[in-house]
């Protein structure tokens, strides 16, 4: 072997082994399990079970609807928030406080935060009480156990990822492009849509991909906020693995989720490539 190559390879060995042991091997186990039955014979039966059932398609639809809406709402809230943090906050200490406020919740357990939302969104929760006291509604809104409730919780949990991805793109934007746009006769609105948005699109896409993949595979938040009324794919998978112990069927569900997600992400990545850094 080439002497000059031995060192880099030795250094790569540890991370490579880690990657194989903790990323590829579990995935392979899941895929192999999904392609076999309880007698360990090769079969596609699990996939037929998943895809031939109307119920599964409904769950897939709900899962992706919640994930897509979470991504969309996070984007619509996250872009202005990132704009505020990178463009409008002049006082550095305040910006730091804002970023800390944004990031600190991520240090707490997802379970704790989702329970928090259960309290807030309940029939007699803070939100309904406030709205009732303010005379804005006559009867409490049903939020727990609805997709809206799950959506609120998911956006709360995942918004920081979107803000950080877009904020990063915004702060790296060369200010002279905006000056040039204004100089050429573009009012601020036109400058935003023709220059700033296209130039921050890579950040937007990466934020969307992050939020989407986390939302589509989220378990804790939908499980706690669904109140048992709504199921998403990750909840079905969890049932198969933890209560039914059907690893073959659970594996097939996991692979279906993975493939659907990869297709969506690949699609988004394509938009990012053709428009983003063109």
């Amino acid at each position: 072997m080439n002497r000059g190559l031995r060192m880099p390879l030795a250094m790569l060995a540890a991370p490579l082994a880690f990657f194989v042991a903790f990323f590829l091997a579990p995935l392979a186990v899941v895929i192999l399990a999904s392609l076999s039955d309880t007698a360990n014979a090769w079969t596609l039966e699990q996939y037929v079970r998943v895809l031939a059932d109307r119920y599964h398609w409904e769950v897939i639809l709900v899962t992706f609807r919640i994930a897509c809406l979470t991504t969309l709402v996070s984007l619509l809230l996250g872009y202005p928030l990132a704009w505020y943090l990178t463009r409008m906050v002049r006082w550095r200490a305040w910006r730091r406080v804002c970023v800390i406020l944004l990031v600190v919740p991520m240090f707490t357990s997802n379970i704790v935060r989702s329970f928090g939302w259960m309290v807030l969104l309940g029939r007699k929760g803070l939100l309904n009480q406030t709205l009732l006291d303010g005379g804005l509604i006559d009867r409490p809104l049903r939020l727990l156990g609805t997709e809206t409730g799950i959506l609120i919780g998911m956006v709360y949990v995942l918004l920081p990822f979107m803000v950080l991805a877009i904020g990063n793109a915004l702060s790296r934007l060369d200010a002279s492009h905006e000056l040039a746009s204004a100089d050429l006769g573009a009012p601020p609105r036109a400058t935003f849509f023709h220059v700033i948005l296209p130039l921050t699109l890579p950040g937007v896409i990466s934020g969307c991909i992050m939020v989407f993949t986390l939302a589509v595979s989220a378990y804790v938040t939908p499980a706690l906020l669904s109140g048992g009324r709504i199921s998403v794919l990750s909840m079905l998978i969890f049932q198969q693995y933890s209560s039914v112990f059907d690893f073959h069927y659970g594996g097939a569900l996991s692979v279906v989720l993975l493939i659907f997600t990869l297709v969506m992400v690949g699609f988004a990545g394509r938009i990012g490539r053709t428009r983003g850094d063109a």
Partner: protein
Amino acid sequence: MPALLNIEAVSKRFGAFTALRDIHLHIGQREFVALLGPSGCGKTTLLRTIAGFSHPDSGRLLMDGQDIGPLPPYRRPLNTVFQNYALFPHMTVQENVAYGPRRQGASRREAGERAREALTLVGLEDLGERYPREMSGGQQQRVALARAIVNRPKLLLLDEPLSALDLKLRKRMQLELKHLQEKLGIAFVFVTHDQEEAMTMADRIVVMNAGRIEQVGSATEIYSTPASRFVAEFIGDANLVDYRVDAQGRARLALPVADLTLPAPDASDGVAVLRPEHLRLVDAGEPGQLRAQVRDIVTVGSHTLLHVETDDGMRLVARTPGLPEAHLGVGSRVALGFDPARLHLIGTPR
């Protein structure tokens, strides 16, 4: 002809730093004006103020008689070539140039046509489909120029547009810019810290220092009759000689030459400028000469700079055409002569 742009009493402070102090300047139609000065002198702030990116604390900007001070940059009838070009990286060259007309309401087709026209003017008609990152610095510079002139502004602002180019290309672009300006018939305001660049291109040069205008004039004027010590030293090489004004109102120069007096511009003592090319080597014995010893010889090729020290310790620079004469060396004794009429006496600094 009335001025295109009147800058009246414009001042700007950034905290404790004064960027512009009471600037008055008129820019004529079709005029090529260079704002020249060291970094931090306020020339870029003045340009940004005209463009609308910086707001003066006081003063007015009148363009064709209209106060453009309250107008945002996108409503001002002028365009800018930025120092780093600021080309949009996500658009092709053609799209970059068509951006201006599009934002001003031209149809896609009309904007495309005008963009092609502008690109032809700068010699890039075949490269419209490329992206800025696929082009050389010189080509990007031309794209920036095409993008800025496509809207046919009455005034083009250029912020050190040639500073990123290498020397040869810069020299060529200086002449090209000058010709383009004449062809288009629009006024250029050009910011530079390079006096040669300013002198090559500009009809009028505005020399700035510490937020103030030191002098406004043609290249010849600011070179041969500098208004201040700063201008004399900043533009070219200069020998500065102190003088005292005597009771008869004659300026007596601190040069070891007998009986050299000149009419003084005003009553106070000052400094006189003698350009190095006006000091020449003479044969010893002629009247009115300076005796000195050579300290350094700098050979540039087209001319030679002789750094000398006179017998009473004054350091001077003389410029002689061509290569140095063979017998000259460091330590040689020389005699220098000059025509007293070449001395320019700077009056009391303002």
